[in-house]
C-alpha cells in the first residue's frame, strides 16, 4: 500500500471543516461539540498508543466531504490519519431528529423477510427527500442543499436536542475508534507481512478478522471513555446512569447499520467479504463492552435490557419512517413492485435471544477474531 504524507491524504479527502465553512444543516453549537469529541478521542488515543509501546503520531480531521465513511491511513514517516467526513455527522444528526420523533410512540408493524440474495442497492425507490441519508451515491453537488431541505421539514425536535447531540457524540466514538483500532492493533503491519509471506489464513479471512477486531477495539475504547466519565461524575459527587448510555449506544449503532446496510439481506449473504452481518457485529461489540464493565450479574442484566430497548426502539422508529415514505411524505413513492432500500428497513424487531443461525455465525466470528489476534501477537512481542 502506498503511504502518503498528511498533505496528500488531506488533498484526497477534502478541506478541514471550520466554524466558518460549516453547512447550515449543522448548527454551530453542534459543530463545536463535535470538535470537543474529536479532542477527547485524540487525547484518549495518544494515551492508548503510548501505553501500547507505540510512538505513532496521529491526526483526526473533520473533513468538508458529503461522504459517510470514516477512513484511516498510515502516513509515511510514521503516524496515522483518520478522516471524518462531515457528511457522516450530518446524516447521523438528521436521522436522529427523524427517528426520535417516534420516541415513546413507536409502532410495531408486520414486516417482510429479507431477500436471500444480496441484491444491488437501488436508489430510485428511495423517496427524494430521504436520498441524502439512505443513498449510496447521493448527488454530491446538491448533498448539502438536499439534506438541509429534509432537516427543515422535521418538526422542531428541541425536546430531544440533547439526545440528538449525545447520539452524534456516541456515533463518533464508535466509528472513529473502529478506525483507530486498525492502527492500535497493528493491522497495517500484519497486512504488509501477509503480503510477503505464506499466510496461515487467506487474505479474505484476515481482512474479515481484522474488521471484527476493529469493532472489538472500538468497544474497549468506548468503555475506557465511559469509565473516565464515571470517575469524573464520582469525583463531582454524582452518579452516571450507565443504562441510559447503553441504551443510547445501542440506538446509535442500530442507526449506523440502518444507513450502512439499509437493504438488510439474509444472514448467509455475508458469508464472503470483509464485513459480517450487522447482527453479528453488534453482538460482538456489545459483548466486548459488557465484558469491560465491573458490575454485578443483576447490573449486567439491566445493561443488556437497555441494549435491547435501544435496538428495538430504533428499529420500530425506522419502520415508522418507512410507513411514512409509503404514504408519500418524503416525495413520490415509485410505482411498481421492487425490493427497495427503504422497504428492507422493515427488519424484524430484536427477539431478545439469538437464533441458532445467528449463534453459529457469532461463534464463527469469535473464532476468526481469535485466529487473527494470534497473527498480530508477534508484532506486540517484537516491539517490547
Amino acid at each position, binding site marked *: 500500500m502506498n503511504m502518503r504524507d498528511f498533505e496528500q491524504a488531506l*488533498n*484526497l479527502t477534502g478541506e478541514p471543516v471550520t466554524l466558518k465553512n460549516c453547512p447550515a444543516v449543522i448548527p454551530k453549537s453542534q459543530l463545536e461539540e463535535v470538535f470537543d469529541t474529536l479532542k477527547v478521542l485524540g487525547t484518549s488515543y495518544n494515551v492508548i498508543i503510548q501505553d501500547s509501546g507505540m510512538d505513532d503520531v496521529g491526526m483526526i480531521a473533520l473533513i468538508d466531504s458529503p*461522504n459517510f*465513511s470514516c477512513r484511516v491511513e498510515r502516513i509515511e514517516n510514521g503516524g496515522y490519519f483518520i478522516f471524518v467526513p462531515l457528511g457522516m455527522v450530518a446524516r447521523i444528526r438528521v436521522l436522529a431528529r427523524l427517528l426520535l420523533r417516534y420516541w415513546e410512540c413507536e409502532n410495531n408493524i408486520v414486516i417482510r423477510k429479507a431477500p436471500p440474495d444480496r441484491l444491488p442497492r437501488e436508489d430510485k425507490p428511495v423517496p427524494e427527500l430521504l436520498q441524502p441519508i439512505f443513498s*449510496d451515491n447521493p448527488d454530491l453537488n446538491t448533498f448539502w442543499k438536499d439534506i438541509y431541505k429534509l432537516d427543515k421539514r422535521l418538526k422542531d425536535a428541541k425536546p430531544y436536542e440533547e439526545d440528538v447531540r449525545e447520539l452524534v457524540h456516541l456515533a463518533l466514538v464508535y466509528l472513529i475508534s473502529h478506525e483507530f483500532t*486498525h492502527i492500535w492493533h497493528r493491522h497495517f503491519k500484519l*497486512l504488509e507481512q501477509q503480503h510477503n509471506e505464506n499466510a496461515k489464513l487467506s487474505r479474505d479471512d484476515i481482512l474479515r478478522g481484522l474488521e471484527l477486531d476493529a469493532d472489538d477495539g472500538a468497544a474497549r475504547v468506548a468503555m475506557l471513555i465511559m469509565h473516565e466519565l464515571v470517575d469524573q461524575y464520582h469525583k463531582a459527587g454524582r452518579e452516571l446512569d450507565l443504562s441510559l448510555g447503553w441504551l443510547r449506544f445501542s440506538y446509535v449503532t442500530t442507526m*449506523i447499520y440502518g444507513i*450502512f446496510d439499509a437493504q438488510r439481506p439474509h444472514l448467509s449473504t455475508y458469508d464472503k467479504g*470483509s464485513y459480517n452481518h450487522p447482527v453479528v457485529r453488534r453482538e460482538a461489540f456489545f459483548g466486548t463492552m459488557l465484558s469491560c464493565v465491573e458490575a454485578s450479574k443483576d447490573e449486567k442484566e439491566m445493561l443488556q435490557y437497555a441494549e435491547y430497548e435501544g435496538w428495538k426502539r430504533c428499529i420500530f422508529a425506522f419502520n415508522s419512517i418507512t410507513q411514512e415514505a409509503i404514504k408519500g411524505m418524503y416525495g413520490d413513492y415509485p410505482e411498481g413492485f421492487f425490493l427497495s432500500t427503504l422497504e428492507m428497513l422493515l427488519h424484524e424487531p430484536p427477539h431478545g435471544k439469538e437464533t441458532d443461525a445467528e449463534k453459529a455465525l457469532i461463534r464463527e466470528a469469535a473464532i476468526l477474531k481469535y485466529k487473527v489476534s494470534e497473527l498480530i501477537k508477534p508484532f506486540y512481542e517484537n516491539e517490547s
Partner: protein
Amino acid sequence: MDETTKLLSMSLDELDLEIGDNLLKGGFGMKPATDAEKRETARRWFEFHLERIRTTVCSNKIVSNCLLGKENKTRNELLAAVVDVLLKLGGWGTVPVAVISARIINYGLDKLCTQQTGRKS
C-alpha cells in the same frame, strides 16, 4: 477489444471509479467504499496532480506537435505518448499509469495544455 481501446472507450465515471478503487484499496474503513466515494477521491487526486501532469505532458514533443497541428496522431498514439511521460515521471503509487493516461485523454489534451490556472503544483 484490446486494452488500449478499452481504456479509451471508458467514460469519465468509469475511469474515476478505477482510479478511486486503486487509491482506496489497502486502507481500512467501517464499510466498503461506495462508488461515489471512490469517484470523489479520484476527482480530488486528479485535481491535486493536475499541475504536475500539465507541466510534463504538455512539454512532451509528440503531444505539443499534435496540438500545434504539426503532426497527426491517433488517440492510441497519444495515449502511448502520455503513458511514456508518466512512467518516466513516476510517483503514481498504486494507480496504474495507463488508467491515469486515459483519464488525461478523457480530460482533453487541448484543455490541459491551454488552460490557465493559478493553482500551485
